[in-house]
């Protein structure tokens, strides 16, 4: 209980192109680590809570449960976000996930365009996800970390569009950040996630 730990960045802080060392340091060490710490704190508080009152208008228990999904989702999405970067962005056509993207979106570029539009529209994340209910890939839009999740789907490529992810590097130019993110993707890694999701 309450022992989620921060995963180290799987590459050097200065190794991404177009996402600065400074942003990675703040984003990973402060923001992401903050979600992990709060998740632990909330789980501990829930376990120790003396008066467990359920109330849809307000109760301490209810608010802790509400924050739990925010912080847990924050932890999970940031871990995948960092895991799938560190590559050179080249999406080899022989990879299963790339074949599937072409099948479901028409072409890789069509996926990219839709992904970017989703990222420009979100107040949280845009996520390429595999949804087992229809066996297809989708770009889902999520506000915050936890509003807009589709049950049972597996996140494969989540892009963080909180301003802390790009504002220091790009100011309000979110589009350039999305391009930089796509160019840093490690498609071999993403293919592994896809295989796990479809196994």
């Amino acid at each position: 209980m309450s022992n989620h730990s921060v995963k180290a960045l799987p590459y050097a802080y200065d190794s991404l192109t177009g996402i600065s060392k400074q942003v990675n340091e703040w984003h990973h060490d402060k923001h992401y680590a903050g979600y992990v710490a709060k998740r632990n704190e909330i789980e501990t508080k829930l376990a120790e809570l003396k008066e467990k009152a359920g109330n849809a208008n307000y109760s301490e228990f209810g608010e802790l449960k509400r924050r739990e999904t925010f912080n847990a989702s924050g932890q999970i999405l940031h871990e995948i976000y960092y895991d799938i970067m560190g590559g050179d962005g080249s999406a080899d056509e022989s990879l299963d996930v790339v074949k599937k993207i072409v099948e479901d979106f028409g072409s890789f570029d069509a996926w990219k365009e839709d992904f970017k539009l989703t990222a420009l529209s979100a107040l949280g994340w845009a996520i390429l996800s595999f949804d087992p209910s229809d066996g297809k890939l989708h770009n889902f839009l999520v506000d915050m970390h936890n509003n807009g999740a589709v049950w049972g789907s597996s996140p494969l490529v989540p892009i963080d569009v909180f301003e802390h992810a790009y504002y220091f590097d790009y100011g309000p130019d979110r589009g350039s950040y999305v391009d930089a993110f796509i160019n840093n993707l490690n498609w071999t890694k993403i293919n592994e996630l896809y295989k796990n999701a479809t196994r």
Partner: protein
Amino acid sequence: MSYSLPPLPYAYDALEPWYDKETVTLHHDKHHAGYVNGLNAALEKLEAARESGDFAAAKALSKELAFHGSGHVLHTIFWENMKPEGGGKPMGEIAVQIDNDFGSVDAFKKQFLAATNSVEGSGWGILGWSDELGKLLVLQSEIHQNLAVQGIVPLLVCDVWEHAYYLKYQNKRPEWTAAFLDNLVSWENVNQRYLNARCK
């Protein structure tokens, strides 16, 4: 009619060193301008819907209107709420009402900072007047429009979207909100808003 971006009521570097020129410039010229454009676009689409009678997008357009409309309103108040060499103690009638509703200026400040610092994700800390409740309230607002008490008139608003402070304060939101309250707030403006808002 369409809305236009109100000019910044002081020079872009007037709030230095607490609020840097670069952030103020981006914040006003890009972000605030974006909400003005978004508000105009939502109103145009609603007008088109009324003309054609096709209200299929009513839900999305209503949300767009609330988001951009609130974004424009709050940013307009936010800029007017600040001045060079601001901060200090509340003055005038609002000072009396703050003592009345919060016990002391100190207690108000603590509550305002605690609420603003703990806004989930992007949003605002707001001191507002409710004529119906006859009280000043400190509220959080998520995004721009969520978590309001209906009828509240915002008097003092602190933007805690990351675009408001990230270039200068990074993830240290409490340093930004403290600088806002201690060094930037124009209590004359807040007091005037309070006098305008209070009918009863």
